[in-house]
């Protein structure tokens, strides 16, 4: 089953736990890479805000986005992650039905957050070219949307595969890994909301 | 080497080994050659310095090169000797292994200690230099010259001298000058070659560098950051003249402007 799909030894059976640990480590490294990318984006926001080159971080007369909207989206992601976690715990107890339900609800929540994210972008009171702050907001929102898309794929896969009975109390390492990723993107959204809560530059520009 | 003998005896017996002698002599010979190279070549290539800054640069190059000579000579001496004294002749495989030397604590510690020492030396030398150069550049009565880079021309203006503008840089000798540098478009880099100063010209920012030109003559000003099609041609000249000639030039420029 899923052991041998993951095993690099085409047909040589490997212990499920070994394969699971190996994949968890690999996905951990992928998360490190993604975290580095997120860190780069958040660093860009902070750095440009600190420099306020030519006073154009938020150019005179232009509007800023309401801070609460990012927090609402982040909260939505956190809830979806918690829901999925409930499902992951369920499968570890052998309850496949709980995983199916949790995945379905999680995916729905992702869709809601996704729609919300698009609405947030569409209703930004500035264009991407308005200034560096505006560009950064579009960037972070777009990156969040990208994370959402990937997680949506994973969530759908979890729902479908759980529905087909691919997971059990002894064979569920893939669910654990999806949870790891899901938790990460929720955390990334929280970091993003936190960073973008500080708007006005401390530096006098120009 | 027997571990029970006193260190001095160990070193003496070690030194008496033929291969050690040959390596050490090779090392000394190469050090001499490389030191001669270090003392002559870099400064000759860099040319006569036109400021204390450049003098410091050239002396650093020389000092670092001399220090590096011994290091490079050691690496080469061992490498060269190995090809003569330890080589397994022919293209057939060797007919035995070498001695199972897994390591040598003393050598390793000594090596790391020496390299740390050399690094500290370079660091302290560099920090000292930076200290004295920044002291030079921040003298209060420094003349200010605004430098503007744009694709692909340097423009200089003299705010303290009637805002005279020019595409040639004129400077009075022995007078500290501070350059306020910026760009109108992309990143350029303001480089006065023989004075050893360089600072980027960034759009939206003003960067500063200072120097005391202490030699009369004409020197090269080049752009040191790829800035587009004609980056290779973004150069002009710095003329270091006596104070009176400088004043005369300013007056002439003011008259031309009015």
């Amino acid at each position: 089953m899923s052991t041998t799909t993951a095993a690099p030894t085409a047909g040589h059976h490997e212990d499920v736990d070994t394969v699971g640990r190996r994949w968890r480590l690999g996905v951990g490294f992928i998360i490190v890479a993604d975290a580095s990318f997120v860190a780069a984006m958040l660093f860009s926001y902070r750095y440009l805000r600190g420099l306020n080159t030519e006073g154009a971080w938020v150019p005179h007369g232009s509007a800023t986005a309401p801070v609460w909207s990012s927090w609402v989206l982040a909260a939505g992601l956190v809830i979806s992650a918690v829901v999925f976690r409930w499902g992951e715990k369920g499968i570890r107890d052998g309850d496949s039905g709980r995983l199916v339900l949790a995945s379905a609800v999680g995916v729905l929540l992702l869709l809601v957050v996704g729609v919300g994210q698009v609405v947030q972008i569409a209703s930004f009171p500035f264009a991407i070219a308005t200034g560096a702050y505006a560009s950064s907001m579009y960037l972070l929102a777009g990156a969040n949307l990208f994370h959402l898309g990937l997680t949506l794929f994973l969530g759908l896969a979890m729902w479908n595969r759980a529905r087909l009975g691919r997971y059990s109390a002894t064979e569920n390492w893939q669910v654990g890994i999806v949870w790891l990723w899901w938790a990460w993107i929720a955390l990334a959204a929280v970091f993003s909301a936190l960073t973008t809560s500080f708007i006005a530059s401390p530096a006098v520009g120009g | 080497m027997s571990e029970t003998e006193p260190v001095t005896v160990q070193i003496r017996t070690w030194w008496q080994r033929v291969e050690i002698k040959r390596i050490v002599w090779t090392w000394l010979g190469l050090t001499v050659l490389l030191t001669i190279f270090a003392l002559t070549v870099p400064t000759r290539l860099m040319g006569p310095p036109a400021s204390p800054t450049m003098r410091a640069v050239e002396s650093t190059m020389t000092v670092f090169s001399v220090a590096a000579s011994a290091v490079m000579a050691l690496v080469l001496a061992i490498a060269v000797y190995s090809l003569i004294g330890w080589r397994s002749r022919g293209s057939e495989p060797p007919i035995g292994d070498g001695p199972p030397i897994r390591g040598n604590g003393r050598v390793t510690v000594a090596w790391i200690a020496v390299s740390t020492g050399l690094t500290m030396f370079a660091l302290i030398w560099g920090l000292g230099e930076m200290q004295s150069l920044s002291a030079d550049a921040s003298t209060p009565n420094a003349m200010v010259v605004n430098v503007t880079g744009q694709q692909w021309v340097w423009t200089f203006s003299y705010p303290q001298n009637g805002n005279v503008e020019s595409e040639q840089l004129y400077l009075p000798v022995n007078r500290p000058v501070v350059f306020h540098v910026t760009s109108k478009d992309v990143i350029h880099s303001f480089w006065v070659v023989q004075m050893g100063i360089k600072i980027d010209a960034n759009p939206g920012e003003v960067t500063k560098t200072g120097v005391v030109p202490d030699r009369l003559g004409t020197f090269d000003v080049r752009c040191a950051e790829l800035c587009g099609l004609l980056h290779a041609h973004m150069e002009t000249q710095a003329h270091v003249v006596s104070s009176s000639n400088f004043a005369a030039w300013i007056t002439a420029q003011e008259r031309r402007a009015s």
Partner: protein
Amino acid sequence: MSTLNTEPLLGIPAAGGGLMRRLNVVTAAGGGLVLALVGWAIARHFMLADDFGPDQVTVITMVCWAVGFMAGIGAFNGPIGWLRGRDLTSEDELFLAGKDQGIRRYFRFTTDHKVVGIQYLVLTMVLFGVGGAMAMLIRTNLISPNSNFLSPQQYNAIVGLHGLIMVIATIIMVTGPFGNFIMPLMIGARDMAFPRLNALSLWMIVAAVPILLSATFLGGIPTGWSGYAPLADQAPPGMDAFLMTIIIFAISSAVAGANITTTVLTMRARGMTWNRTPIFIYGVVASVGLAIPAFPMFMASQVLLGLDRTMGARFYIASGGGSPWLYANLFWLMGHPEVYVILIPAIAALMELTAVFSRKPLFSFNTAVLGIVGISVLSVMVWAHHMYVSGWAPNLNGAFMLTTEMISIPTGMLFLVILGTIWRGRIWTRLPMMSTYAMLWNFIIGGITGLYLSDVPVDYALHGSMFVTAHFHYTLMGAGLTGAIGALAYWFPKMTGRMLDERFGFISFWLVQIGFNVTFMGMFAVGLAGQPRRVYTYDNLLATGNFVSTMGAYAIGIGMLFLLYAVFSSWRHGELAPSNPWGSKTLEWTVPNPVPLENFEVLPVVTSDAYGYGEEPFEPFEGPPRPDKLEPAHVGSSADEDSTEGARP
């Protein structure tokens, strides 16, 4: 092989039916072209005819090419099958691993690490060929002042493309071919941890190559490989090729890095403790370990550039609150670790083979590990030495001088290890070992010149001059590429089953090394004399130095052609290699040539490290066959055409 289970497991249907069996590089290119055309047509129809239109169309077309290519090679079949609950059977896995496919497995999404290794080797050679040809054009233009061989636009574009191609090629040149083919064998594993991700990493780079080369027709990359903003903002669509290539390459590297690191951490043979793990493995892991956090920073810098160029974002535009310093920081946060990503595996490979060709244990294994770790850790703390003159933070220049100069300490440790290994050894001066000596010469020069540049006042004089260009060529090419060539000569017998022709190998070696030193010594000279870098013409006073450099470059070019010839002809007609021609003690030499699909009949159990020279009884070994004892070349080569096993193409 008879122990393999080929039954579909638990009655679950095979993934994708026969689709995977029909996909290969041709369908990939077809898929890429089709989707690119569709994307281009739709984009052109809808894109506003404003400043950003051409870049939007270009980027969309390139994205469509990449996605279409990956779909056409079958990269999405696995994930989509997984989502649908259709997992691979053992039979599928064997097919993916290239069983019974002969030469065709090299043109497919094949998971066998040995196939991926060979694919990386060919890819690397192609990249070096193109990048090298560009170098010849650059030096020809610089043969005299105002040669008018190339226009300024052509020159700048070629410099940019040469730089990026070479950076990519040097990053993958050791970890690609040898990190893939050799590393799992060396640790006693049957494959990598994630074989399908392995194939994915490779094919992503293949997908990126046409994008990279398309810059030639899109106005070129006028910024040099570092792509500094805001010059990059105003550049023609060739810059979009630049940023797309990097984005794809960064993802490929992150995936490859996760794969290699997980493999080494979790799949070493029983008994292979860290003390018994060969130093080459440390080098490869350190390299990808650096790449995993560093390359996403580079990717971020390019995503921001892409947004500036396609949508008018203001990340790097000063008038909009953006800053070129943001670009520089993001770029160099990657850019400095990246040079150690390039260098460490090459030096580690040389350390590995030096022990073999000195018939001695690696001198002070712990110091070697400490050196590699020390370089890796420090390398993330030095980036702003590239920005001493930028003015971004003059007060930090001293701190970066400190960290940068400190790197010479762990670097010196690696010299100690190599010299200590050579010390009183039985030096067997075959082609692989010659690379070690060349590296010692080139790297000491590269390292010392790096010390000059790390000194802030000296850097004020030398930054942005040809001195810098010469310094990094001495380290990345003189040490790095030389190490990669040594690795190739060393592991060629295991990867191809034949010996690399040493006559042409030696001719190549001397032409390249002498040519190299002539070229770049000349460059140090003109740099000290004040020639900026990336200039298509220069002051008349610098003519001699430039002429000399160009002559040296031609010698390198000819030498590389000899190497290329040696590789091609040896691969096809070379002397058949015994399974351990060098008498090495690492695990990859215990498997026969050609290497079986499963690598090891029985996974090895390790009881000692691989450096027991002089400690274990010496077993005389036959060594490579002598040319006069050569078997007729056609015996063996045709018989293996349809071989079911292993690496022989």
